[in-house]
């Protein structure tokens, strides 16, 4: 679950991390009493807002409304700006970086910090980055803060504030089931206060049940992906034209890869998972059809999942949707013959191997177009 800046800052504030005052608005006329002078910031779930002109200053109420009006409705990285955040402008002396994420290899939390903030951390020279695993079973120990301060080489008053914020951000990271807590820039004002200039927060989708209040957050999903999410289906829209559906995330990825090697391009990632309930398969397949693929590549390895009941679901969806799209299927495993039989009835192209299926799908599409 990704958080818009102002939502992330709400959470930051709850944990005692200093954030500038700000107000959200969806329409210029809703802006009544913004903190002035302010920054008007586009609220979208992608980076690069500044470069795209989505972050601009305003000194008066009128100016704020004008700027907001210009930013609202902008397209940034494919996303339409629906909200702006008007935030007290900081008199920034320097910009630092601080984040928590996970170190998969060490199976620990990972603290990253740098004295060079305000730019993407990937752009910061390696030797300017402080990176330290935080053992979650015992939490951060003082040595981590000492090492952090040595690396950042900051005056004590600033250092103490950084450690305080680093502690609070760690608590947030743990208690909110965060995947990412990023403060960039972590701004040091000219009068010596340390404030979160920006706020990025991503919470583990799997932990949604522990944070039901986040379930309603807007996510960067297409309408179809949103529909899939609501139905609990693993579905992603891609920029190709061939609908790919398989059972298992790894197998679906592999099918997309094979398609690509054969000159095609996947338009969907649809993982049926372990289900062989025809109704659920039909539901998933209907989603796929709504994405208007030029052809469909179905790849089922029926290990425990029964191939024929999957096929029944596919047939049902095609029938219901009166779909004319060519379906190439490669089905292997339990009841594969029955499955092929069922799919032949709806005009499926059968294939023996994934490679063959991919080739057929590419051809079928060409034929169709």
């Amino acid at each position, binding site marked *: 679950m990704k958080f818009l800046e102002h939502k992330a800052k709400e959470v930051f504030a709850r944990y005692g991390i200093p954030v500038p005052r700000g107000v959200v608005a969806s329409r210029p006329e809703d802006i009544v009493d913004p903190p002035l002078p302010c920054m008007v910031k586009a609220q979208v779930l992608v980076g690069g807002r500044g470069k795209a002109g989505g972050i601009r200053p305003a000194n008066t109420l009128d100016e704020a409304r004008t700027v907001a009006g210009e930013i609202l409705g902008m397209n940034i990285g494919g996303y339409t700006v629906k909200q702006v955040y008007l935030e007290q402008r900081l008199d920034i002396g320097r910009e630092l970086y601080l984040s928590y994420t*996970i170190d*998969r*290899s060490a*199976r*620990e*939390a990972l603290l990253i910090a740098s004295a060079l903030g305000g730019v993407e*951390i*990937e752009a910061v020279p390696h030797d300017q980055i402080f990176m330290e695993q935080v*053992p*979650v*079973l015992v939490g951060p120990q003082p040595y981590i803060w000492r090492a952090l301060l040595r690396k950042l080489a900051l005056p004590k008053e600033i250092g103490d504030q950084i450690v305080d914020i680093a502690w609070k951000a760690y608590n947030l990271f*743990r208690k909110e*089931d965060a*995947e990412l807590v990023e403060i960039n820039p972590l701004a040091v004002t000219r009068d010596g206060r340390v404030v979160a200039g920006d706020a990025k927060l991503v919470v*583990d*989708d*799997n*932990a949604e*049940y*522990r944070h039901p209040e986040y379930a309603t957050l807007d996510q960067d999903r297409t309408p179809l992906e949103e529909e899939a999410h609501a139905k609990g289906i*693993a579905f*992603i829209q*891609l*920029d190709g034209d061939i609908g790919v559906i*398989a*059972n*298992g*995330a*790894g*197998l*679906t*990825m*592999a099918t*997309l*890869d*094979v*398609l*690509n*090697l054969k000159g095609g*391009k*996947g338009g969907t*990632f649809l*993982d049926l998972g*372990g289900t062989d309930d025809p109704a659920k398969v039909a539901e998933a397949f209907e989603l796929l059809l709504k994405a208007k693929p030029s052809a469909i590549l179905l790849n089922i*390895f029926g*290990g*425990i999942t029964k191939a024929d009941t999957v096929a029944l679901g596919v047939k049902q969806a095609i029938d219901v949707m009166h779909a004319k799209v060519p379906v190439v299927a490669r089905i*292997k*495993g*339990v009841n594969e013959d029955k499955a092929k039989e069922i799919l032949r009835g709806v005009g499926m192209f059968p294939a023996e*191997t*994934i*490679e063959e299926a991919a080739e057929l799908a590419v051809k079928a599409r060409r034929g169709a177009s």
Partner: protein
Amino acid sequence: MAVLLTKKSRVVVQGITGHQGQFHTRAMLDFGTKVVAGVTPGKGGQKVEGVPVYDGADEAVRRKKANASIIFVPAAYAKDAVIEAVEAGIQLIAVITEHIPFHDALEFQPYARSKGVTVIGPNCPGIASPGQAKMGIMPNRIFRPGDVGVISRSGTLTYEIVNAITEAGLGQTTCIGIGGDPIIGTNMVEALAKFQKDRATKKIVLVGEIGGTAEEEAAAFIAKRVTKPVVAYVAGRTAPPGKRMGHAGAIIQGGRGTAESKVKAFADAGVPVAQYPDEVAKLVATA
């Protein structure tokens, strides 16, 4: 021989009375696994497929000398179940459950480690040693005893590859589905070390995918420590950055975790990488 799971392993099924638990208890018994007990709180005294059910893992250990556990309980209770198993004295745990918050795994994984317990998963198909025992959800019929060790982050894709290996006339010592989550118990390097040490294993297959740097670490380890031939496959070559490809761990973020990087690492380590899943079996046969 096999790694981690053998015919001597005495398996308890945590969450045995659920749909999955029941189904796979039957399948594991059919595989020849010594499933000695099940656990479902409040259902002690029942039987599932002839296997006695207890209220707690400690009873399964005390009464049935269980030393390995497979966990099917819902995600919200998985941390509880793993720690219960560890404290009961279980030595090997396969966590099948998917959608476990990784902050839970950040706790139970090092905790299990502190007690010397091996965890496989979560979000994994388990582990199978053909001819000996299976503690997982892989289909029984794809396996055959042999000399190939299989390590995989994925489920169905592994079945494909294992099946192809079997159809090519080869077989497996053990197949470890290490899981698709970002925080997993036994990682590729540790699994590789087990197979390198196991005398019965002559060749090793690695099935990786995008996300994280497990494959790069595995490649470095192979270059330094593995003398047996290794064949790899990496899923997700066409996955776009920032999109989570089904598995919680399968995502390219900030330029890390790309398939290119993994394929290159394997190539640098002298490990042939199959372009197509079906190609793996061929490469293994000639390795």
